[in-house]
């Protein structure tokens, strides 16, 4: 079967979503993952956007979280305040899975989406946090989509936009953040988890055809590869849902 790494990434994330989950979606591939999950295994999962759209039915893939497509037949049209409050609130927040992306990540899942270089005189400026720092602060489980590149997996992020496990161990708790934090990193090559105790990143699974060494060769720091297994290929059904029902125009799949 042929499929792209983007398709594998979307399917790998979709498989993780359950019926009781409230899925916070950012722009891009995370929307496809949530759309696919609703069709594959979690029809009752709630897709929601920081813009305030709760329970979006998504007939077409939105190109931004502010796309009017997120408003189609929602259960509620709220506001930014409503959507972030739903994550900060511990009753509803505990059901939320956040899906994030970033320009840089370190071994504790701290994310940078603000600048490369010095903050006061940046070499490259990115969009900034948006809701990412909020999601990372509130949500018990977050999935991070990354491209597997040395310059993106760095020893120290240039700017810590979204708190991950900070310095590891119980650092989040000490900082005053909620329990829980980065759950998985999904790249174009593999899936990484975080150790229960040290909170350090480790290799959880390679995509078919990728070796642990391939992954290490594309990171700026070393991680434990002893626990790695292999991610099952996308099934025909998964691919057809993704291609035919979620993104027939291939706006995000490319």
């Amino acid at each position, binding site marked *: 079967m042929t499929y792209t790494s983007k398709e594998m990434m979307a399917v790998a994330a979709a498989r993780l979503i359950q019926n009781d989950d409230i899925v916070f979606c950012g722009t891009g591939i995370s929307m496809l993952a949530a759309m696919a999950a609703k069709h594959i295994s979690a029809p009752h999962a709630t897709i929601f956007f920081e813009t305030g759209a709760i329970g979006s039915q998504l007939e077409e893939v939105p190109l931004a979280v502010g796309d*009017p497509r997120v408003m*189609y037949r929602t259960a509620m049209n709220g506001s930014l305040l409503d959507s*972030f409050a739903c994550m900060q609130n511990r009753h509803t927040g505990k059901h939320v899975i956040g899906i994030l992306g970033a320009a840089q990540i370190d071994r504790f899942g701290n994310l940078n989406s603000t600048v490369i270089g010095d903050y006061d005189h940046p070499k490259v400026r990115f969009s900034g946090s948006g809701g990412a720092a909020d999601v990372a602060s509130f949500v018990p489980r977050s999935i991070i989509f990354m491209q597997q590149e040395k310059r993106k997996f760095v020893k120290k992020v240039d700017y810590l936009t979204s708190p991950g496990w900070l310095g590891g161990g119980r650092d989040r708790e000490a900082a005053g953040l909620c329990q829980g934090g980065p759950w998985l990193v999904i790249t174009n090559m593999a899936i990484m988890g975080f150790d229960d105790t040290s909170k350090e990143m480790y290799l959880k699974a390679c995509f078919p055809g990728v070796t642990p060494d391939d992954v290490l060769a594309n990171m700026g720091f070393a991680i434990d590869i002893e626990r790695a297994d292999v991610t099952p290929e996308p099934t025909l059904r998964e691919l057809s849902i993704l291609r035919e029902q979620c993104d027939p125009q291939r706006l995000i799949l490319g």
Partner: protein
Amino acid sequence: MTKDDGNKAMHLSRAIQDLVEDGSHISIGGFTINRNPMAAVYELIRQKKRNLHLYAHSNGQGVDELVGAGVISKLEIAYGGSGRFAPTCIRFKKAVQEGSMAVEDYSNFQMTLRFLAGALGVPFLPTRSGMGSDILARWGFSKEVRSSDPKLPDKKAVVMDNPFGDWAETSKVVLVPAIRPDVTIIHAQKAATDGTVRIKGLTFADVEQAKAAEHVIVTCEELVEPDDLRDNADLNNLPPFCVDAVCHVPLGAYPTACYGYYDYDPKYLKAYAGFAREEDSFLGYLEKFVFGIDSHERFLALIDPEQLKNIEADPRTGYAPNLDRT
């Protein structure tokens, strides 16, 4: 400001002229590629406003055009992007990299709470967001800048121990300061001449942004009589006394979307991204689409009528299904 009969309808150019001064602190509504008050953005550029202090959360297209045109000297923002058309807003990116504009970074929720604090009339609101991040550690505006401007709070944020022990399982909170704009500008689907506002679909943070401001300008697709919006007040978002000026501007959010009325225009946004890439082409763009004309109506006359037809919203979905968005 208001006429004796409570009629607040006026031309957009007059509203901008009367309410926005050089150096004003303003905020604009909308989110990335949706319901940005673009007609007002173009009017601000056209009137060559300077040194505005702009508050936004994830407003994309409006922020980028204001920044590119040199209207903004200081920006407080959570996100400068226009979705797939410009993952990072292009003129915004350039201005920050060149240091031609000072930026203070917050998160979307922090900005929302800051507007809400302004709306509620309190100096700050607490959150559990951002602890341990550089958003709290690094300030875009220095202590000196802050203390020299009476319109700015003297701190970016304050981390405080929970004064109620560990109530609500919370050991610490971040206090973020209220935003109090001189003027907020939003675009709504409907507004009445008395200032009542009805937004269809997501309100983003428009309501909080409006209530936080001393003055509010509303542009709208449809201008109606006050009685027309009293049929179902559950759908209304702002009462008359929050609003100073109501300006009837059909397609006033174009090229961004207006739910139930029209979609964003992918062609325009893509073309814009091209123009924005270089200084010269961007100046040419402004010359043609903003300075060369004198109203939003004339601006729309520059757009291919076929494309305006393509982006019309269908009643079932509120957007333009099967629109070519490649």
